[in-house]
């Protein structure tokens, strides 16, 4: 018993940077696209990642999140099925998207700015957006919106590249719950 506890403690202590896995039950990654000026909301049901966030020392904080693109969910079955196809996310060839922070800066008043690299469909782009963070019990809750250009990632090729129907800008909304021991 004591031996196994010690072993567990050793494993925890040797985790590099003490980065904590996200609390997936309390985290959401969604998005809003506009078609014919009509907002349509969707989300990615499965994602995972490690985040270390110390609100007092944000410069040392970082996040690395991987999204399972095939877990995308849109309001209608035909739109969910369409987004898996080659012209959209091509999930057969690019099953995951990845986001890695390069820097986090405090903006004051519990607001911060991240910069990082977002890779979707094999295309990597620099992204940056503000977010808010607050402590709630044992969790640090991070909320923000990252607007991206879908065409910059070749999401929606061929006839779907027409932005008169589906707008180029897509808002990615993230609500990330990080366990408190992630310092």
């Amino acid at each position, binding site marked *: 018993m004591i031996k196994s506890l010690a072993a567990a403690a050793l494993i925890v202590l040797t985790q590099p940077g003490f980065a904590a896995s996200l609390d997936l039950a309390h985290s959401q990654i969604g998005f809003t696209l506009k*078609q*014919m*000026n*009509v*907002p*349509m*909301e969707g989300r990615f049901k499965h994602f995972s990642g490690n985040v270390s966030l110390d609100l007092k020392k944000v410069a040392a904080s970082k996040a690395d999140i991987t999204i399972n693109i095939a877990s995308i969910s849109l*309001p*209608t079955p*035909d*739109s969910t*099925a*369409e987004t898996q196809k080659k012209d959209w996310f091509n999930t057969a060839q690019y099953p995951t998207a990845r986001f890695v922070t390069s820097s986090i800066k405090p903006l004051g008043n519990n607001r911060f700015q991240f910069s990082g690299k977002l890779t979707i469909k094999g295309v990597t782009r620099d992204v940056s957006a503000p977010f808010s963070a607050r402590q709630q019990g044992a969790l640090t809750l991070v909320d923000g919106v990252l607007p991206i250009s879908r065409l910059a990632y070749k999401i929606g090729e061929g*006839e*779907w590249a*027409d932005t*008169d*129907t*589906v707008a180029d800008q897509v808002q990615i909304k993230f609500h990330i719950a990080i366990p408190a021991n992630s310092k």
Partner: protein
Amino acid sequence: MKPSPRYAHAAIFLHWLVALLIVSAFAVGIKLWSLPLSPFKFKLIAWHKWLGMSILFLVVLRILVRLVSKVPPLPLHMSPAEQRIAHLGHLALYLLMLAVPVSGWAMSSAYGIPVVFFGVFTIPTLLAKDLLLAPTLKTVHQGLNLLLAAGVLGHVLVAFKHHFIDHDGLLDRMRFGRNPSQGKD
């Protein structure tokens, strides 16, 4: 046979305008039923919703006009039972003309996709997003449409029967232009 007096001008205008819009919205809806998703389908869906919301507004207006204006009597040769059936038929058409766009509006709301009228004005949702309820409402919308289509077909056939077989001048009640008794159109 003496031509029937006509409906109010506003009622006649709304009857034909709503008829035109219903046929258009129905045709687009039938096309949507089988069309795979494409930018063109998103456009058609938008147009279909704009037509549907326009129809709902105009039908409400039509009912108000009907309530405040004089309705011409049915042809004298119709028995009381036939007159009752005609009134019930018209009532059913009015109810379906309301129920069809409302069911579409409810279906759209349940999918969490608002109707943005002419791409500008966001119409409030009728109910909260409920992706489990949405497919049921879609079936309800399609079913009500088939009922309305059957109702419209019956309405047209009976109107033709009156006009061309009974020769009671029934179609004149819904005709544009001046009264035949007052001269040419």
